[in-house]
């Protein structure tokens, strides 16, 4: 830890003032207000708040639509994360040799990170478009099944999963490639000398040695899929068809802004807050172990 060297009575307060002020007004105030609001509901005329205690939470957890939304979110986040990481890991492992031009590949892989989830969704929306899209067209030669995401929940889910995985893929692959470069070739050589085949080498050595990278990418992708995909859902499926893609963040927004159920929406915010705290704690617990990226 650095020894502090400057002495001044008021300057340090002045220096932290902007950050503290913004944090208080735009983070703490709304967060506490969410917690407070979650204990109230608006009166029938909307002119005052009625204290309902845990009422909103009890309502949420007994509400089939909310439970469905929670399951949808967890499913969505898990599929995006697991599919994205597995794909990236396998390709990275296959491509892991000392080859020329790794830097060029990295440039060609990283750019989708710059595309907003909402825009990524719109690009894929057209590829999936039931009437004009290239994907249903190609599939129509294989099967008579109608891959129409306007009508079928799982197709809509697939659409947003694909868009999310696509956006994150190059980024995941770049991190795995970097992680693989850090594994000593001699370790793998030694294993192959001992008669371990490529699959065995991958499972016994590469995968465990990459676990810090995997863990880092896991929490990152989970956080992304949970909290940064609002734009994707809003611009593509709008939660539909039915509520097949209504993830928690989208539902909290819709209940608050379109259905104007403030207390209920605030209670959903509080639940989401618990999820972030869990994910952050998880991240720091493992970061403590001096994981090196």
């Amino acid at each position, binding site marked *: 830890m650095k020894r502090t*060297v400057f002495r001044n009575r008021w300057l340090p307060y002045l220096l932290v003032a902007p950050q503290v002020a913004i944090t208080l007004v735009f983070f703490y105030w709304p967060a506490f207000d969410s917690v407070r609001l979650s204990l109230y509901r608006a009166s029938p005329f909307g002119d005052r708040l009625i204290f309902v205690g845990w009422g909103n939470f009890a309502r949420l957890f007994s509400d089939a639509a909310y439970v469905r939304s929670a399951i949808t979110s967890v499913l969505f986040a898990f599929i995006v994360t697991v599919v994205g990481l597995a794909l990236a890991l396998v390709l990275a492992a296959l491509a892991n040799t000392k080859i020329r031009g790794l830097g060029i590949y990295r440039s060609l892989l990283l750019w989708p990170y710059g595309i907003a989830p909402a825009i990524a969704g719109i690009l894929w929306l057209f590829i999936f478009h039931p009437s004009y899209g290239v994907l249903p067209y190609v599939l129509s030669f294989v099967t008579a099944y109608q891959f129409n995401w306007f009508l079928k929940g799982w197709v809509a889910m697939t659409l947003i999963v694909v868009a999310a995985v696509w956006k994150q893929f190059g980024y995941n*692959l770049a991190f795995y490639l970097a992680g693989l470069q850090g594994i000593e070739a001699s370790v793998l050589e030694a294993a192959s000398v001992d008669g371990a085949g490529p699959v065995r080498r991958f499972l016994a050595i590469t995968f465990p040695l990459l676990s810090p990278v995997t863990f880092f990418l896991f929490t990152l992708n989970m956080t992304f899929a949970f*909290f940064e995909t609002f734009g994707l859902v809003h611009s593509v499926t709008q939660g539909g068809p039915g509520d097949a893609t209504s993830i928690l963040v989208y539902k909290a927004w819709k209940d608050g802004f379109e259905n104007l159920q403030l207390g209920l929406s605030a209670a959903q915010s509080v639940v989401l807050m618990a999820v*972030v705290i869990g994910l952050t704690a998880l991240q720091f617990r493992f970061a403590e172990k001096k994981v090196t990226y």
Partner: protein
Amino acid sequence: MARVLDAAGRVDVRAATGPRRRDWSGVLAHAILIASVALLAFPLYYAVVISTQTVSQATSLPPRLLPSTSALQNYAEAWHRAKMGRLLINSAVMALGIAIGKIVISLLSAFAIVYFDFRGKRLVFWMIFVTLMLPIPVRIVSTFEVMTQLGWVNTYWGLTVPLMASATGTFLFRQFYQTIPDSLAEAAQLDGAGPLRFLWSILLPLSKANIAALFVILFVYGWNEYLWPLMITTTTEMRTAVVGVESLVPRGGSQLAEWNVIMAAAIMVLLPPVAVIVFMQRWFVKGLIESEK
């Protein structure tokens, strides 16, 4: 004993066929990476192609995968219909405002935390730390009420200031300052330089790389933010470009889907952040690794 012989045999075989094997794995690696790059680029290629076609070409079957000649009309149409000029300015204000504001604010607070001893330092540090757990989606309704009370709905203040404070930047600079030898600050003091002088002429030039890295990450984040502008702007004049593209997407069957115009708008909107990533890639990679730690 047999094992050793076996092992020795394998080593010999490897040595004999070494170069050839390496060549083949190199070819495989290139093939996999090129395939990944192509697959990753396809949605963008398709969007660009559609943006150059007429409506009837864009909605014809089989889908046309080659560019046509209507690019100019489509981009002009998208520009006018979505008021793209205004929206891009709004996005630029938001992205630059957040990036620059956040860098300045976190630079100052990290300086105070590392180079000063003051009462309440721990409290300030933890206050900033906790903001990691309060992303926008967990404060949806309450944040809007705060913005209404401040009169910041539909203003550039509202689009930028509330997103300027968060822990990422502060931690990044704090970590970096801690690696700077104490002797620098001592020498500055001996020369009679005050803390602000030290910050301006020594710390700031040393932080250039970190500032550039953070800038790329924050610019992309600010440009692509979706939920925030959707919540706190209610007029088309104050909307950002990413949200504006969504408003072109037809909802319900009656609207004519001009996908060529939508894709032209999408390309215009995704270009700036992707360009920043491509042209500042070195800083982008540094920023990714450091800010996600």
